[in-house]
């Protein structure tokens, strides 16, 4: 039995220690906003925050997450939209949208560390997140907009 906090709520799950956080969230807790894409940290669609850091949840064993605090897209704005989410809406980034939750989680983490990233900074940090629809240009633009909203630019 492992205890973890997701978006401020404590949960207890009875799974094997190797089970990655992704499947705890999706199939044990029913929190499906975090997506499954590749299972081997090649696509980034499962990105969440663990104690504030962006992590590929398909690679985080539940035994290592136990006792920690997990944040998914629903809670990043603390009850309202996060500036990154607002920027994603403003630029209409999403096509199918399946990767965008992970893209935004990664972008939020980038802006935490680097409030005013250049295109190169964005490319470096965001290139682990695949988008098969090809929305990369809009993602870059939205990150710049979010940075400006957050007072970085």
């Amino acid at each position: 039995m492992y205890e973890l906090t997701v978006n401020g709520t404590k949960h207890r799950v009875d799974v094997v220690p190797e089970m990655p956080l992704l499947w705890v969230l999706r199939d044990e807790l029913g929190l499906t906003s975090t997506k499954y894409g590749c299972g081997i940290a090649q696509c980034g669609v499962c990105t969440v925050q663990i104690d504030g850091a962006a992590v590929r949840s398909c690679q985080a064993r539940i035994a290592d997450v136990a006792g920690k605090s997990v944040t998914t897209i629903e809670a990043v704005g603390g009850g309202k939209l996060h500036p990154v989410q607002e920027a994603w809406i403003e630029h209409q980034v999403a096509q199918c949208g399946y990767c965008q939750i992970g893209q935004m989680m990664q972008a939020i983490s980038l802006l935490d560390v680097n409030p005013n990233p250049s295109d190169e900074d964005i490319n470096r940090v965001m290139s682990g997140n695949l988008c098969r629809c090809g929305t990369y240009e809009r993602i870059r633009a939205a990150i710049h907009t979010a940075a400006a909203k957050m007072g970085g630019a």
Partner: protein
Amino acid sequence: MAAMPGFSRRTFIFGSAAVAGGVAFGSYGRAQEASSSAAAANPLAAGLGPESAAFNPWVEISPEKIILIAQHADIGQGMGSIQPMMIAEELDLEPGQFEVRFAAPSPAYYNTGFAHELAPFMAPDQSPEAEKARAAALEWLRKAGLQMTGGSSAIPDTYEKLRRAGAMARETLKATAAKRNGVAVADLRTEAGHVILPDGTKISYGALAADAAKMPPVTEVKLRDPSQWRLLGKPMQRLDTRPKVTGELQFGIDRKMDGMVYAAVKLNPNKGQPIKSYDASKAQAMPGVQKIVKVSNGVAVIATNSWYAMKAAEQIDCEWEPSKYPAEQADHWKVVSASFTPEFLGKQWRNDGNVEAGLKEGKLVEAEYRAPYVAHQPLEPLSGLGIVTDHGMEIWLGHQTPQSVQDIAAAAIGMKPEQVIFHNEWSGGSFGHRLEFENVRVLAEIANQMRGTPVKLVFSREQDFLQDIPRQIAMGRYKGSIKDGKIVAADFQVAATAPFKGLLERMGTHPKDPDSQLAVGIWNMYYDIPNYHAASYEVQGLSPSTTWRSVGASANGFFTESFIDELIHAAGRDPLQARIELCKIPIYRKLLETVGEMADWKGPLGNGKGRGVAFVEAFGTGVAEIVEVTMTDQGIRIDKVWVAADVGKVVDPVNFENQVQGGVVWGLGHAMNCELTYAKGGVQQTNYNHHEAMRMYQCPVIAVRGLENDYTARGIGEPPVPPAAPALANAIFAATGKRIREMPFNKFIDFV
């Protein structure tokens, strides 16, 4: 088209035989003749509550809410938003005043947009003969009743139809209000979900629904001129943007149901072949595992969690029936190479002038091109939720051909199609993947062995790659001759596996006509070459192949526009100027001129930089692209792309730009670094690290301009793909002097 082939229930075929000389959509069959019953005319009528009205198959109004029906699947291209917005434009609804529901399978939602592809006339042809053939094709489609999303047809299909549906509902509501209040219809107007009486009183549509249901629907309506539009044609917010950003939007893979179990599969990588035997003793003992069931081409594990199911499935030892196609990739290429013979001729699509004589004049240029198998791999893996009872099956997943889901699922469990209730879902991408049925068939087989229990099937990424029916493998053998700086003759021959015919066969028909997709890019070739021959050869006995975003044009467009570039170079001409002069169709010439202006094209750049241009018309939409690259120490860097596309009418400008940019990324990324190769009967690439396509750091700035010179509304989901690869190859040639004639290009040159 007097001789449209007849059809019998569940097995009819339509094709090009009726009209001589030209391309047709090919043959395809749809399971059943469209019924003339009331339910078939309006599938909403049956489920209607009291005091509710369904004005047509797309609009349902009750006192509580307004529901607009999306007949085309949303696979990321925005149709879940554009369709209701087209209705809302004429019905005078504002975003937020209605819900959107995906259509149930019904012949009422037959796709009129295929009429242009079906009629064997080139897209720019507006002759009476062409229009007559299109009208006949449309009538045939109506009878066929095939509801399908694909072929960039959703806008051509719905552009008029849905605005008309909205206008009909509006006028019926106005007629209802006029009758109730004793005023003239002409004195009423509508705004934001209300009919407004002459004295300014507002009556909500919902309050009129019960009476409106008893009125004869008003069918004679005049559509508003685009200059009057409030929503369409202007930058508008896609309805699905916000829920996709908050995480609220549920994709098919997210659907839950009480008592649901999870399933994962291990399927025969030798596509289309069954399993011989298996040993699941290790898997059986693994955590979370509830049951192991055999399916026709593999094994499924039922567990309490999809991760437990996937892990256990990996541990099953299976003995597979070997492939019917060659086990090793090199042998696939040998078969393709040997298929340029009369025995495999699909069709001679063009034979203008005297090619044999023309090729003997001037300087001969010859080249061979290759396009490999490629995977679709949308980020949402194949998945689905299903429950089978003794009475039927209910199934939830994102799919482009609802009626075929019913057919395939029913056949898998020995039931009738009408016993399968299908619910379409938002899809996390498709690119052609969700026109196939690997998940549908397997889910039905599993759920049938778990009767009464809802089963959620999720393919692991590896299983999805292994079962992905790829883009066709193709080879082009091209010849041309140059004399006095002009192209005298050209002979374009393509041999490829038949993608569209393959899909149709898996849908249950066996088309006899040539695969018209293999003609795209060699038949509809608009340059003025006096002696021109084009033919397709259909390769037999290789991997099954299917439609991959832009289908035939994804390979043929690369071959043709690369070779045109080679001919122009041999003629000593500028690649853009020569194309503009050679192009016979004014609106396409305009696209080349426009993209040249956008890029400020002035000839060679020097300093390790190069630009390439390409033009392809696919699915009726002409697209011209220019790619600029720089040869750096780390390899080729793609700096910028310019695109001009003519869709007749840009309905949703922001989404239009997004689709074009995405199509360019798709075309470039796969040309750079993607292929599927077979070894021991299965593909060797099983995750994104083997089949990466474009990542953000490689993504150039992509400037887009939409033109509206075409005479009819066209689609944009696929047409930006085909010019991307040849424009890149031509740019690499301009920068480095190196011609790359085979995809993926990273076999021959490094990319940054």
